Each structure stands twice: as structure tokens, then as C-alpha cells.
């Protein structure tokens, strides 16, 4: 029976659950680079000939990731023919388990990301590359293209690694000649980073109340209500 149904349009429940768990394992293992996972690769490496069941099986796999692993699979519409996914952890879970220990490399990258994402956030969403580099130089994190003892090659992280991981977007300013670039938040930052925590950090450093930053505080509230709305939609 099983072999017959694999040729037909319907999958047996055994085959289906095998494919779902394969996809879950594949996504979990691919996630460690933090690069987005392409639909194309999932079909090529896991589903193979069962490509036409993609939508159904992916929905089930996302369900498993949420219910069992507590992670959210976020779809990114890169372009119409290239779907990509990133994994985002459960906020509530991380708040409860605050002593989760990260490797030193990850710690360093998170410090760096917090600094530069908060700068972008506070500056209204865009920062020019000259501002970014002078900011990091002032903090003593970046010194030309010299490798930092704690962070490594900071500029390469910013313009290559973080871009690939979708924490930041590093794009050319249109009609700039010679080309100038600016930094914005990437898709992963939007999914993974808490604006409230960033604003809390900035306020801590400034020694003031987060609500004093009227524009930014407004944005925090807006982002949180949007997230809440989405969660309700997903729940239904």
C-alpha cells in the first residue's frame, strides 16, 4: 500500500509523518549558521519527489516547531519565486529561562548587534555607513580594518555576516556617486529583536525613563501590538 500511495497524489500517514519530522530536523540543523533556509533547498534535500505536498507538510512542520520546540518559523518573502525561512525563539521562554548560556562568539556578536541595532533604531531606522563606522570607532570597537581581540573583523561582520544572517541590510543609497551605503534593520532583527529591550538599554545608558523617547517609545508600542495581533491570527 505504502509504495502505491507514494506514486499517487496522496501520502500515507506514515510517509507524511516521516517527511514532517525530516523537515523539522533539517530546519533545526540548518539554523545554526543563522542564514535563511531556502524553500528550494528544503525541496531538494528533504521532499525530493514529494514537492507538490510542500505547502501542507511545511504547515505541519511549522506546527511541530511551535508546539514541541517552542520556536517560530518565519517566512520571508525575498522575491516572488524565492521563499526563505528563519527560526525565532519564543520570547516568553527566554524570559523564564534567563540563565541560558551562549558560546563566547555568540555573546560577542550579540553585544555588537545590540549596539548597532539600537543605533539604527534610535536614529529613526537608517544610519549611514560613515556614522556607523565613526560610532564604532569612538567606542573603541573598530580600529580601521584591524581585527578586534573580542569581536574579530567588525566591518566584515557588519557588511557580510550580519547581512547574510539578515540582522542588517547594507544597501547603496540611490543615485549616490561615488556609491554610499546605509544600514537598516534586516528581517531577522525585525523577528528576533525586542525594541523594548533596546530602548531600555539606551535609557539605562542615558539614565532616563524610556518614555522620554517619545517617537521611539511609540514605535515600541506599535511593534508590540502588531506582534500581538499576529499571534492571535496564528492562534486561530
Amino acid at each position, binding site marked *: 500500500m505504502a509504495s502505491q500511495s507514494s506514486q499517487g497524489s496522496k501520502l500515507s500517514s506514515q510517509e507524511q509523518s516521516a517527511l514532517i519530522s525530516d523537515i523539522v530536523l533539517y530546519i533545526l540543523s540548518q539554523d545554526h549558521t543563522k542564514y535563511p533556509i531556502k524553500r528550494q533547498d528544503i525541496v531538494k534535500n528533504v521532499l525530493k519527489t514529494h514537492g507538490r505536498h510542500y505547502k501542507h507538510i511545511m504547515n505541519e512542520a511549522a506546527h511541530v516547531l511551535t508546539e514541541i520546540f517552542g520556536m517560530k518559523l518565519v517566512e520571508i518573502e525575498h522575491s516572488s519565486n524565492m521563499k526563505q525561512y528563519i527560526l525565532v525563539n519564543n520570547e516568553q521562554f527566554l524570559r523564564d529561562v534567563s540563565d541560558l548560556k551562549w558560546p563566547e562568539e555568540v555573546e560577542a556578536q550579540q*553585544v555588537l548587534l545590540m549596539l548597532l541595532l539600537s543605533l539604527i533604531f*534610535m536614529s529613526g531606522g537608517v544610519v549611514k555607513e560613515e556614522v556607523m563606522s565613526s560610532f564604532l570607532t569612538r567606542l573603541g*570597537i573598530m580600529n580601521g580594518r584591524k581585527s578586534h581581540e573580542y569581536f574579530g573583523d567588525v566591518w566584515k561582520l557588519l557588511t557580510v555576516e550580519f547581512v547574510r544572517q539578515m540582522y542588517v541590510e547594507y544597501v547603496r543609497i540611490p543615485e549616490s556617486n561615488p556609491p554610499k551605503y546605509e544600514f537598516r534593520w534586516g528581517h531577522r532583527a525585525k523577528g528576533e529583536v525586542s525594541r523594548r*529591550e533596546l530602548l531600555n538599554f539606551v535609557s539605562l545608558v542615558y539614565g532616563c525613563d524610556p518614555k522620554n*523617547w517619545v*517617537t521611539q517609545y511609540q514605535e515600541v508600542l506599535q511593534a508590540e501590538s502588531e506582534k500581538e495581533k499576529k499571534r492571535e491570527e496564528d492562534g486561530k
Partner: protein
Amino acid sequence: MAEMENYGNGESEQVKYVTEEYRNLLHEAMLLNEDDKTGRENIQHISSLMCKADHLIKDVQNLNNTIGLLDAKVISIGSSVLKRTAEAVNANLFSFTAEEYSDNIISYLKQEPSVTNNIKLICQKLAPIAAKCFCRTPSYMYMLGTFQVGEVAVTQKKARKQREKQEEGSRKQPENVERIEKQEDGVEETVHYIMNVVTAAYRQNKNKPISYFELVINPDSFGATVENIFHVSFLVKDGYIDFSWDENRFPVIAPARRDVIENRKKYDQTRQQMVLEIDMNQWEELKNTFAIRRAMLNPRNITAAQDSHH
């Protein structure tokens, strides 16, 4: 305004003039864009530019492509300057600047009592705060995950090594072929040498046939004996040597006469064949019977014989 004075001097004059004015406006706008300032004067400057453009375009009756393009460009650059200015104003509500932010971060870190000037320690201090900002998923690795990759790498290496070996082999080949040719030459040379020895011995023996075994047997080596028999068989087959029996029924040989050889070649008469069986015991026996102490044929002399030929 200046442009009003020239109004009414004919349509083509007017178009020319408006185009020229637009070029100036565009140039000014581009200068503003490059200036990168976001102050209040900037906004006023841009608005005066826009007013001028508006004024110019109102008077044009026949819009042509050049003016349309210039107008679009002025508006596009003007709006990008305004957009940047607006973004700057937005952040300025509670006066946030990158410089102030970085200075505050540094002074905040220096407040911490345990922190020294060590950058690494300072950064590590921020790590727990930073971790709170992210909903990062932990890495998930298979314990057996890397094994498959390892195998693939090994097979690739093997394939490369084999290719290298094959290349070396093909380089050597020409040498091998030469050597084989030399060996074949060697057989011919040996046969020639034997023929010479036989002829010489025949003459020494007053033109009487010589004992086959005395010629062939090498008392020091059974192998050399077999080789000699093999080489002589060529001579017999090709008719250069006549084979017969002496009074004691032992085989004797004599070089064939030249005219006989040529006749044989011409008419291709039935060839002679020689079949001889010899083993170690027979070799020992023959050696003793004929009391052979020295080999008549010595393959090592071939080179010497060759030299005498040339």
C-alpha cells in the same frame, strides 16, 4: 522675477530659456544633495527652488521631453533631500546623536566598579543585557552529523592521487618502447654473432662440420646453453646452417654455401626445423662426455664482435 522680462519673445526663444533655467535649478539641487546638510536653511532653499520650477512650468505652452525630464529630476532630487531632512528632524525630537550615545555608553561602562580598561571585560559586561534583546534559537547539532561529509572528502582525495599516477606512467612509456626495440636488436645481433663464430670454427676445422654440442653448451650456465640452442635454431630454420650427423650419430653443423642459401630463398623449399629436448641432467652428461671446459659462445662478447664488424 528675472525670467518674466524675457516672456513673449516667441515660442522657441521661450523654450530655450526655460530649459536653460531648469538646468540651473537642477545644478543647485544637486549641490544641495551633495552638501548633506539637514538644517532649516536647506528646507527654505529647496522650497524656493520648487517655487521657481513651478513658476517656469506654468508659462510653458508646449511641454517638450527635455523640460519634462528636467522637471522630474529636480523634483526627485528635491524630495530625496527633504526625506533625509525629515528623517533627521524625527530623530531630533529628543536630540539623539550617535556621538552622544557612544559617549554615554563609555561613561556608563566606566561607572561599573569591577570594570577596568580591559575592552574584553567591558564587552562581556554587556553580554547579559544584549542576550535579553534577542529571541535567538540555540544551535542544534547532530552527533553523527559530520560523518557523511568526511567520507565524501576522502573519496575525492583518492581520485586525485590516481590521476597523478596515470600521468607519470604515460610519461615513462616512450622509454619502455625503446628498450624493447633494443632487446629485439639484441636477438638479431646474437644470431649474427653465432653465425660468425660458426663460420670461423668451420674454417679452423679445415672446412669440416663442427660438433653441435661443443658449440652450444656453456659449461658454466644451463640457462645460457638453452639460450644458445634457441638462437641457433633460428639459423637452422632460415637455412643458414646445415644440420647433419657424424659417424658417432652426434649432431654436427656447418654453414650453408652461399649459392645454396640464395636458392633456398628463391624457391622457398620446405624449411628445416630442429626440435631438441634438454634438461639439467642431460646438460651435465653432455658436458662431461664432450669434456667442455670453456663456452664457445659467450653472449658478453657480442659488443666486442659488433665493434670488430664496424
